[in-house]
């Protein structure tokens, strides 16, 4: 009897000691990090001129600790201005059920809004001139749906851009603007420009268009002296057409061309004033981070850009025989010489 009891006691003690060691080990040894979640982000853009916005978004995400290939992966689609492709890509991205979709420009946001309806996939948009007027969100303070993001305030800054154009060359009297009345960005921006024009002391020639080629046809017929400057109000299609044909035509006519982004200025537009695409992308990344941390898109107000970007191309200025005032140059974030 005692022998059996001793064995039983021995086994119990060994078991207790063993379980104690196991527990202690478990307690002492640093727990392995929880399985790292790899976030899947869909990226959709209308066209390449806003590439820097996507770049800025990715940079912002990286600054926030999301390393591509480590804890985040992107599925990128660029419709290159093709609206049909845009809708197709929007559907495709939604079918992949990403954790979030980052989209830039109004047309792409419209496509993604439609595609994500009823799915609950959060969407962060960027480079949208007026998300309320476009019907993407209920109000700036709360979208009331699965969308939130950053506005590029192109409508708000449109008069300022015209004023800058006048500052660049005070002799400007007549400014040519192409716009699509139905465009959610270019249309209202043109309205604002038209409203501000008399105060600035310029006449605006606003030409409605329906397709890109309309711009080419108009520019082809344009003769020197008919206009003093050309300006892109903030329409993706107009932007694309002016980049393609307007830059050269402006040089030919020796008139200033005011565009929106750095890329166009680098390609030869005299000036650009718009948002800092990279910074706006980073700003959008902050919103995406809030969503990935569990905050509902409807709880995050739409943000206005933190930074605006003004660039002057002195090569073009020289080519068109224009001397840029020192005060204007002092305002520029970038001077291309």
């Amino acid at each position, binding site marked *: 009897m*005692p022998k059996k*009891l*001793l064995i039983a*006691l021995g086994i*119990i*003690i060994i078991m*207790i*000691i063993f*379980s*104690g060691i196991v*527990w*202690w080990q478990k*307690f002492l040894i640093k727990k392995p990090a929880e399985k790292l979640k790899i976030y899947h982000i869909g990226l959709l853009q209308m066209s390449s001129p806003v590439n820097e916005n996507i770049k800025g978004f990715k940079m912002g995400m990286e600054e*926030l600790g999301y390393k591509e290939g480590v804890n985040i992966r992107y599925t990128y689609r660029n419709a290159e201005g093709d609206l049909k492709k845009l809708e197709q890509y929007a559907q495709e991205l939604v079918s992949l059920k990403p954790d979030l979709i980052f989209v830039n420009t109004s047309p792409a946001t419209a496509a993604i809004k439609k595609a994500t309806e009823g799915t609950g996939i959060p969407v962060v948009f960027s480079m949208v001139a007026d998300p309320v007027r476009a019907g993407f969100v209920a109000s*700036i*303070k*709360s979208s009331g749906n699965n969308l939130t993001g950053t506005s590029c*305030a192109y409508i*708000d*800054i449109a*008069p*300022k851009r*015209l*004023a800058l154009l006048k500052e660049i060359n005070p002799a400007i009297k007549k400014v040519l603007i192409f716009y699509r009345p139905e465009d959610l960005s270019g249309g209202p921006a043109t309205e604002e420009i038209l409203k*501000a024009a008399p*105060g*600035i002391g310029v006449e605006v020639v606003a030409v409605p268009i329906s397709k890109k080629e309309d711009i080419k046809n108009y520019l082809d017929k344009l003769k020197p002296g008919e206009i003093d400057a050309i300006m892109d109000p903030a329409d993706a299609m107009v932007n694309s057409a002016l980049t393609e044909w307007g830059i050269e035509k402006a040089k030919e006519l020796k008139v200033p061309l005011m565009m929106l982004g750095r890329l166009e200025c680098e390609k030869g537009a005299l000036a650009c004033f718009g948002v800092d695409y990279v910074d706006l992308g980073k700003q959008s990344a*902050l919103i995406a*981070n*809030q969503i990935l*941390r569990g*905050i509902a898109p*409807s*709880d*995050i*107000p*739409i*943000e*206005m*850009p*933190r*930074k*605006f970007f*003004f660039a002057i191309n002195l090569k073009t200025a020289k080519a068109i025989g224009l001397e840029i005032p020192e*005060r204007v140059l*002092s*305002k520029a*974030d970038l001077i291309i010489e």
Partner: protein
Amino acid sequence: MVLFRDEKGIPGINFLYLIIGLVILGLMVINIGVNLIWLGVFAEKLKERAINYEIAEAKRGAESIEKFIEVEINDIKKLSQDIATVKDSEFFIERFLKEHPAIKEISIINLDGLEEKRYSRERYFTKKELRDFSFLEEFEKAKKGEVFISKVDFTEKGEPFIKISLPIRKLENEKPQAILRIIFHLRGAWEHVLEMKIGKTGRVSVIDDKGMLIADPQPSRVLKKINLLTLPPTKTLIKGEVFEGAKYFNEKGIEVFGVGAPIKNLRWGVIVEQDAAEVEALAKEVAIFATAFLIATIIVIGLLILLLFTLRRADQDLIKKSLALEKRTQELEEAKASLEIKVKARTKELEELTKSLDEQVKEKTKELQKKLEELEKFHKVAIGRELKMIELKKEIKRLKEELEKLKPRTKTSE
């Protein structure tokens, strides 16, 4: 103590058991005590460390906001002096706007309170949009030479901002030439503070001097204009003191540990809240471990005591059996001794008997020898006679035969 001594007064086995038992109990008490104290202190330290970390983060956030705003205000003060000294103030203002993205608007107000110029990097203002400030507190204060900083307000687009008004003058003691009015957007100040990572549930928010929430990771809360005056950290922060931490229920009804650090110059405060469950998680783990450890210790010690009792009982049985055996051995030895005596006596008797028998045998042998000798003598005598007898018989027989032979001849003759 008598109980633990044997008949000779020497400490016995029970005394040994008592000592072992006391040692085990002592160890148990020390073990439990030490572990309770150590683990208890350890758990408390863990909690303290988590709270200290929260406080450090709150202070860091407060300092960061304070520094950001201080730098901006100093630059604004410098701008007001530059404008007073140079002719082309517009150049300075435009450059200032470019270099300070958080400053969204700059106005020059004359001493009558009328806005003369309004600058913005992104907005174009017409003359119609120039305003009259003569009736406003901010203008009056700036005109008196003070720096006016408004409470946090929000633009129609939900952007938090403050208004700063200050005199434009070359030197501090001079009369103002005009008033400089600045619209300072605060998002830049919030961003890195609100992005602070404090555990899984940590959240940083900023309150103003009235307890209004002015920055939060969930901006919709700010837009709802929530007043956090009822929260424990708020009152302390408004006084400009650090709130060292307390457990309370936040406005969502979640139990949190909250700490706070003041942004002294503005009388704002940074509040860091973390779910109490998360703060106490490690301490709880330690407490569970301590409890389990104590239970295991008690079980082991209980088993040792049980083992001790079992051994003692087994030992007592052994002693009893040993004593019985000893008694039997003694009995056996006694029986053996008695038997030996008896055997010895019997042996002696037998020896004597053997001796007597030997003597008797010897006598009888002697007698028998004598008789044998006599018999032999007799035999010899008897055998001699017999032989003579045999010879005589044989003689007789021969003689008879001879006689016979003589008798028949006579008869035939008849």
